[in-house]
């Protein structure tokens, strides 16, 4: 199967084959709507097998890792540090290293200093040194995120509970925090202060600037019954809808789900620790136990590539098996 778009009649960056590939990337996930704006793909395994480098036309390649849950030691995965190491090994094996990593939260299981220490120690083995973080709810359990912020925001100009933005190769990246000050009965939440900041942050950007937003809890209503959504994400997306390319990367749900709406691609990543059930298929969204030989096929990471002039970014998942 080719890794490029061969028929693009609508000039919207998608053909039938590309659509099917996109569904394949989503794996067991759900694809709700397709109305334009996807992508070219190449999995890490394919790149490694071919012994080649990333496509020459790629201007920027970065990796998303998520939900490492260092400290978790229950049946669903008794050695999450080991599977995190395997994920880093995969990154180190890439012929062309990614420019940087994005970690979309739940670094630890219980926000313990020794869990953060273990994560930091293991991460030292990664060839790619630049890492951008957003916190998960597991990282802000007892102190509202102070320990997390002290450790992981040194290279950015973070505001409030830890949100920030930066630019790379003409792409504007926005890291949002939707796991603090949550309200009883509610979902993930950004809050007024962060929303005001976001509106101001993108105000002066041209509409052709590609935008990548990353946050822990999905910024779309994946399954609100399980808390898999963000109550004020619509307002945030409202500030971003004028942009021609918007990619939203989330973690939290430990599985790949993708939705494309116009110029917006929503995507959730696998965990490096343990899988969680598909929405509504279990009594609760807790860790999912699978046979040991299946575990690594349900853990993974996400590669994102940006090509200048393309309307959308390629978002490709690969597992650890």
């Amino acid at each position, binding site marked *: 199967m080719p890794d490029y778009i061969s028929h693009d009649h609508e000039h919207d960056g998608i053909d039938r084959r590309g659509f099917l590939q996109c569904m394949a990337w989503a794996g067991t996930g759900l694809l709700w709507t397709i109305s334009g704006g996807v992508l070219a793909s190449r999995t890490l395994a394919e790149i490694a097998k071919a012994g080649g480098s990333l496509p020459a036309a790629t201007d920027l390649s970065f990796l998303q890792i998520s939900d490492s849950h260092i400290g*978790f030691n229950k049946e669903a995965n008794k050695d999450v540090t080991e599977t995190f190491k395997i994920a880093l090994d995969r990154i180190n094996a890439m012929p062309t290293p990614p420019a940087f990593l994005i970690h979309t939260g739940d670094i630890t299981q219980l926000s313990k200093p020794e869990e953060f220490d273990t994560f930091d120690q293991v991460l030292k083995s990664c060839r790619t040194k630049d890492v951008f973080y957003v916190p998960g709810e597991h990282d802000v359990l007892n102190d509202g995120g102070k320990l997390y912020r002290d450790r992981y925001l040194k290279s950015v100009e973070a505001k409030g509970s830890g949100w920030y933005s930066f630019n790379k190769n003409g792409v504007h990246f926005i890291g949002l925090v939707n796991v603090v000050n949550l309200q*009883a009965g*509610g979902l993930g939440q950004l809050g007024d202060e962060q929303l005001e900041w976001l509106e101001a942050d993108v105000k002066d950007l041209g509409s052709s600037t590609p935008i990548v937003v990353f946050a822990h809890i999905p910024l779309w209503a994946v399954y609100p019954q399980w808390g898999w959504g963000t109550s004020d994400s619509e307002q945030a997306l409202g500030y971003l809808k004028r942009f021609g390319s918007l990619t939203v990367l989330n973690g939290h749900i430990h599985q790949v789900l993708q939705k494309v709406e116009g110029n917006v691609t929503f995507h959730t990543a696998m965990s490096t620790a343990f899988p969680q059930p598909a929405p509504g298929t279990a009594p*609760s969204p807790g860790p999912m136990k699978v046979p040991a030989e299946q575990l690594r096929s349900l853990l993974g990471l996400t590669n994102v590539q940006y090509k200048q002039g393309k309307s959308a970014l390629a978002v490709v998942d690969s597992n650890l098996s």
Partner: protein
Amino acid sequence: MITLTPKNKMAALLCSIVFLNLSLFALGGEVKNADNTKQNRIEIKDFAFNPQKITVKSGEKITWINHDEEPHTVVSVGKKFQRSSGLDTDQEFSIIAGAPGTYEYFCSVHPKMTGTIVVEK
């Protein structure tokens, strides 16, 4: 038809008392401590507080225990009582019920999880 004699009336009464106590124990909620003071237990399982609503007397102890593999917290809406830290699997958290009133609480990690404590005099 069974006619209750004084003797089997007593047996039935004893049986029902035993059954009632077992029921209370099995359902969680209210059990007695060794010193006969009332203990109120709230089980956390499958991302829910059970019982979701509990009525206690002021001065009684309330204990939550987390049976999930996911950490949970107990946080008072409006900060009306001390919050728990993140409770790992099988970890407990207790408070002593204070002034009479209705107290709402939730899990700050999974805010869909909510509960109510009614404290009576």
